[in-house]
């Protein structure tokens, strides 16, 4: 029972613009990021994690193959998910965000995933369990707890500021 990162290829951002004219003045408000999956086996996507950089709203669309014969179709998983409550101020502008499967209609993601995601940092995608999402979120909780407890040292005060009784110092360091 483990979650793993799914190798994915994140393409560069493409601005959505009206017409053919490429202008450097107008700043389009919507950017698209394509994410593809080189691995062959189908997987169940549990979580998408990324760091925001001044994106206000996020939509995710997935291209699904339902069977070998029907053509693939685009499905919207997430529409206008708000990352910045006030886009003209700094709230949420550089936050780390996780999106979970339960936030969108559940489905199996095909090997090729393409979605318009206007955010500039690469995403980490996690392959899930065959179990229901409830179990996976509990596992996530336990993992987080044990990580925290293992990673942090005791909060007890140490007290000593010297090294073996010596506090004879050079100048202050800049690094």
């Amino acid at each position, binding site marked *: 029972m483990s979650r793993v990162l799914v190798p994915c290829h994140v393409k560069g951002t493409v601005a959505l613009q009206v017409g053919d004219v490429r202008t450097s003045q107008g700043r389009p408000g919507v950017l698209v990021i394509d994410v593809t999956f080189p691995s062959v086996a189908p997987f169940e996507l549990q979580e998408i994690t990324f760091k925001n950089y001044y994106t206000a709203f996020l939509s995710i669309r997935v291209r699904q193959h339902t069977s070998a014969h029907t053509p693939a179709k685009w499905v919207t998983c997430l529409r206008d998910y708000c990352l910045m409550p006030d886009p003209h101020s700094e*709230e949420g502008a550089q936050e780390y965000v996780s999106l979970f499967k339960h936030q969108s209609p559940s489905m199996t993601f095909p090997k090729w995933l393409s979605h318009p995601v206007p955010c500039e940092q690469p995403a980490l995608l996690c392959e899930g369990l065959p179990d229901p999402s409830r179990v996976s*979120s509990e596992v996530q*909780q336990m993992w*987080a707890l044990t*990580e925290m407890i293992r990673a942090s040292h*005791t909060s*007890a005060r140490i007290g000593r500021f010297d090294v073996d009784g010596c*506090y004879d*110092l050079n100048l202050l360091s800049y690094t």
Partner: protein
Amino acid sequence: MLQEESDLSLIIAQIVQKLKGSNLYSQLERQAWASLQRPEIKLESLKEDIKEFFKISGWEKKLQNAVYSELSVFPLPSHPAAPPEHLKEPLVYMRKAQGNWEKRILKSLNSMCTELSIPLARKRPVGEQKELLNKWNEMGTDEPDLSLFRPVYAPKDFLEVLINLRNPNYENGDSLSFRTHLGLIQVPLKVKDIPELKECFVELGLNTGQLGIDDSTQVPPELFENEHVRIGQKVLAEQDSAAAQQYIRQGSPTALRAELWALILNISSEPEDVLYYEQLKTNVIQHDLLVDSLIYKDVKLTASNDDYYFVFEDYLYQVLLCFSRDTSVLSHFAYNSASPPKSYIRGKLGLEEYAVFYPPNGVIPFHGFSMYVAPLCFLYHEPSKLYQIFREMYVRFFFRLHSISSHPSGIVSLCLLFETLLQTYLPQLFYHLREIGAQPLRISFKWMVRAFSGYLATDQLLLLWDRILGYNSLEILAVLAAAVFAFRAVNLMEVTSLAAAEAVLADLSTLKVMPLLQIFLFATVT
């Protein structure tokens, strides 16, 4: 739903981890073991019986207070992928600005060190140690030659740094547009407007009794004051931090203030705390630090010259010198955008096992720093208690007033809140002052950085600090600053220079803060 549950588990895990290292944890453990002797504790229902015992004996309340304290101080755990620096400050450009500012301070301190040929730290010879121990209660009588020392920085230097803060992703354009900020602060932080402030500070409203207004001599005490005092005594008897914090929003009776603040800050003077303070005192005796001279100089320049605070000069040394040696203060850097300065033992440059922080608590005092301690001397006379209260006030509130961060109680947000309030609700005044070259923030900045200490009369200052504790926020400082400008608006509209504007606002010692705040928030036509 699932996300909230896992967030809660994370918060619980973090608090448990924090409290495990505390005195309270060992006390609870001892109490639990000792309780096994009691007849009402049965083996079959051990867990429930011990929990019941804790509830009755008041230990559960102590634990509740400790948890409440952790929740008030520490930010919520962030995303698992977020690195530690994200918790200190989420915006990269602010972190960079803070780093650059710190470098400047370090360079300044280093040059002072080399120019004056004084070491950063020096072990005192035994004779000097004895002398200092004898003089401990009257260090103010010392008149060391401090003429060569200069403060590392003054608030106005810090203001210049804040004025130059820019978000690289924010397009302001060179010309004035609706997007340019008219004030000095140019970063687009979210600040509250008056309707939001009214919601936030609802207990300061016109229909709620306040100390600072409804206890004045003309108002019969039966109307509000007597009942409020009675409730305060009840809150203290219950020893409930959360209740105390709610209560103090309406102000604290003078007689109860010291205990109430201690309850809210979760300070109880155990023998271990007194011992800890004595240990810090020993550290001061053994080592002399360069920052000690900076502290001396600051006290001599500020508190000693103040009519209200000069009597406390000796206390200030006893607190601030020990504060510099206190390594437990280092833990607040987890949520402070600042970082403690680092150095190496002489001859071991670059070797991590010989890396130390300087000063031991990581805080370099600036001009006016001692004014954070001075008002507390009116409330606490026992040095170790005074020390604990100051330390807790510092790691909860005061550190935000001199570090660059995007926190709503950080000085940058306070400055922007002040400017926005003035611009929105007193546009004529704001425009006039700008036109005459008297940007309002240049005058109010020093008030906010010092949390008004040294500018207001002491009883008024303590009423203000009651609300800082009650609302667990420093935003009230910005609101008061705007309210002061509103109060003196008529005179300010007539001045024609920055110097004249400063003169109008030079003396705040006659101001009554609560009526000013109440009128500005609740009685001004908007």
